[in-house]
């Protein structure tokens, strides 16, 4: 009886905490979405109004005055390319680090991730300038690949570690070399982890502003940089900015919702022995 009361109290507490956490995370998002349907006057009005006549003017303005689809395509190419690069390099790296029990690759990539982006910016800029790659997709994919690679390695290392050694050894006895055992055994077993690594890499790369601001030009500018155009010297088009931000948020959000089941499984992978 007492235990039932305790567990009921714990459930209520968890629900309250979850609501607080959700409110903290969702309030800015809801604010952003609501503001995108307001006129610029309403966005900055004080006190802010929750009841208003929604307008699509900001979105119409966005479509009319900017090359929104072109920026979206750029974002997709750059984030997709960086994610692919991160996966191509990160999956074998994480697998090798796991199989050989080497901890230094993970530490090295972590230190690269911990370092502020500005640290890489100047060397990257100089290098790409010398190769005449400023403003190219290559430069943006390579730099954002630097963001994606540590994420892939750090997400997949515990996932590969969780695969029993004996299973990999059984594959070895069955005639698999390292690459084939990665392909036939490691990858299928690490699928939930690969999904989460893909999503996280994509989202981080999609939202990464600094490298794109400096290394892109008008033809390769991604959405996050394009949205920056709404912030002017003297005035800011808050409604337009909110509409752009809402649209920028959509693809990663849709992606995350689509693979929600895998996402939760991937995040808890390796946490318990199986």
């Amino acid at each position: 009886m007492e235990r039932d009361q305790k567990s009921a109290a714990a459930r209520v507490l968890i629900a309250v905490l979850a609501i607080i956490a959700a409110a903290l995370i969702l309030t800015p998002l809801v604010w952003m979405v609501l503001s995108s349907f307001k006129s610029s006057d309403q966005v900055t009005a004080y006190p802010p109004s929750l009841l208003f006549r929604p307008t699509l003017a900001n979105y119409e303005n966005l479509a009319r005055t900017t090359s929104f689809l072109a920026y979206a395509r750029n974002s997709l190419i750059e984030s997709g390319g960086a994610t692919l690069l991160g996966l191509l390099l990160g999956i074998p790296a994480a697998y090798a680090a796991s199989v050989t029990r080497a901890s230094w690759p993970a530490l090295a990539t972590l230190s690269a991730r911990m370092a502020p982006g500005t640290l890489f910016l100047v060397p990257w800029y100089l290098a790409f300038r010398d190769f005449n790659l400023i403003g190219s997709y290559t430069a943006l994919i390579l730099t954002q690949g630097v963001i994606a690679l540590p994420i892939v390695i750090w997400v997949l290392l515990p996932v590969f570690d969780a695969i029993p050694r004996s299973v990999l050894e059984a594959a070895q006895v069955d005639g698999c070399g390292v690459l084939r055992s990665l392909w036939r055994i490691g990858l299928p077993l690490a699928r939930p982890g690969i999904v989460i690594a893909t999503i996280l890499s994509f989202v981080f790369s999609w939202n990464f502003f600094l490298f794109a601001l400096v290394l892109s030009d008008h033809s390769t500018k991604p959405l996050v940089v394009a949205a920056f155009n709404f912030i002017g010297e003297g005035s800011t088009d808050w409604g337009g900015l909110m509409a752009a931000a809402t649209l920028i948020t959509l693809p990663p959000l849709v992606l995350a919702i689509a693979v929600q089941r895998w996402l939760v499984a991937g995040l808890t992978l390796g946490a318990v022995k199986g």
Partner: protein
Amino acid sequence: MASISLRGVEKRFGAVEVIPSLDLDIEDHEFVVFVGPSGCGKSTLLRIIAGLEPVSAGELRFAGERANEKSPAQRNVAMVFQDYALYPHMTVYQNMAFGLEMRRMTRAEIDERVRRAARMLEIEPMLGRHPRALSGGQRQRVAMGRAMVRDPSVFLFDEPLSNLDAQLRGQVRTEIKALSQRLRTTMIFVTHDQVEAMTMADRIVVLQRGVIQQVGTPEEVYEQPANRFVAGFIGAPAMNFLPVTQEHGAVRLGNGTALRVDHTRSGPAILGVRPEHFVAAPPGQGLAAELLLVEPLGSDTLVHFMAGEVRCIARVRPETRPQPGQVLHFTVQPDRAHLFDTESGAAMR
């Protein structure tokens, strides 16, 4: 089919020496069991033979050919792991077929081999299931099936029964033994269970701290243990060890009791007596044993008593219905008693 020869094989993990230097010959078609306590190096030795662990020194030969540099696949070994190591994302059929696919066999041949092995192991209805949908015993069979279909030169078993319950363990043990007789392939089986070793092996290799203590048939290691370690490890309950002084044709215990024993010399020794080799004696003769504990097993009864400072176990007939506190008298079968050197523990013959 392959004979295996290990010459001066050593294995070190950093500064830790797991196998100092080891020589061993395993004949073609032989069923050899590596037995020893945990950490004795038996699994490491098996992994060295499998090609999963490189040797630190020495040479390994398969059918007379140097195999040190060969991969497990090149050695054509098949292994059944302690946790079965089935591929969780594959069905039973795919698990069994995987090794054959790696050898680029035709689909028809793979199918034929998998179904034949599945029939033999009675797992045909499970071919479409995933390992998670199988019981421990069924997984064990699949692991064996996966090894069998390969038609390997050598089967390696790394404590494959340790995760099964007692009843199933006995059943699978019998099946593996029957399988070995049917397949006539060289088999190496690692266990810490001396009953498994005794019941399955053509020859037993007893290991302690990476050193072979004795290699012999089950009868040899049981009847003529090379040293006190082997004598104590093989046999359940374990052999009783009593410090004695040897006299001509007899030994004298610390309390003065004399027991007739064959092959005595002179000086101190350790008398080894298996529980079943104590013989009931008339009152006043032999060793007086006040029973501390009585364990009826049905087929016979174990009685615990003190012989001086040493706690001993004797096996008696159940119909004697001994009771705790009762005093029984025992002698030993003179020709079944063992004497060991007090220093080295080596058998004195």
